[in-house]
């Protein structure tokens, strides 16, 4: 394993650990806003580290550009989604249809 592969491995493992942190936060944190806080780490940093690791591994500028584009778009989507869902979680006053399990906050 050469130095580049070692760097890629490091980045991939670090990225996975951020995804793990996101999942643990999603499962363990007490309310929707805290959970949102946890999962944005996985969204932003985890995906960035995995993309960087894969970019190092791919060794082609075109592939690296594609990975960068994926990450930038993921940031855009995650920002908008997180903002919208957080607003919904704050203003949550609509239970689900009756006859279902309660879905109030």
């Amino acid at each position, binding site marked *: 394993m050469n130095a580049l592969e070692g760097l890629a491995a490091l980045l991939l493992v670090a990225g996975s650990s951020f*995804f793990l942190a996101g999942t643990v936060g999603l499962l363990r944190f007490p309310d929707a806003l805290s959970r949102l806080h946890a999962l944005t780490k996985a969204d932003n940093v985890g995906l960035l580290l995995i993309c960087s690791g*894969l970019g190092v591994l791919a060794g082609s500028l075109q592939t690296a550009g594609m990975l960068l584009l994926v990450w930038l778009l993921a940031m855009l989507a995650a920002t908008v989604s997180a903002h919208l869902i957080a607003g919904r*979680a704050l203003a949550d006053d609509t239970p689900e249809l009756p006859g279902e399990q309660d879905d109030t906050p």
Partner: protein
Amino acid sequence: MTVLLPAVVVFLLLNLVAGLWRVYTGPSAADRMLSALLFGSTTVAILLLLAQWQDSPALRVAALLFVMLAAITSIAFVAMVQGGAARRQPATRANGTKS
């Protein structure tokens, strides 16, 4: 690398399985949407890893499509809530803080 890439894929898949618990229990609709959001980015990461491991560049395009369109469901989710609330109580958003 031929071992690490699939190992990371398995690890991320196990993360997804664990995250399913949050989709199942909720309790609020926003919680379920949040989990779907995390699932989306994890799936994209797995697709990118598979693209490298299986030497299939087209999977990167599939990952690109997922991230590009990921926000659409969230916007529909919020539109749904606002529409549903507005229909019964037109002024509900004006002081729409958590009760």
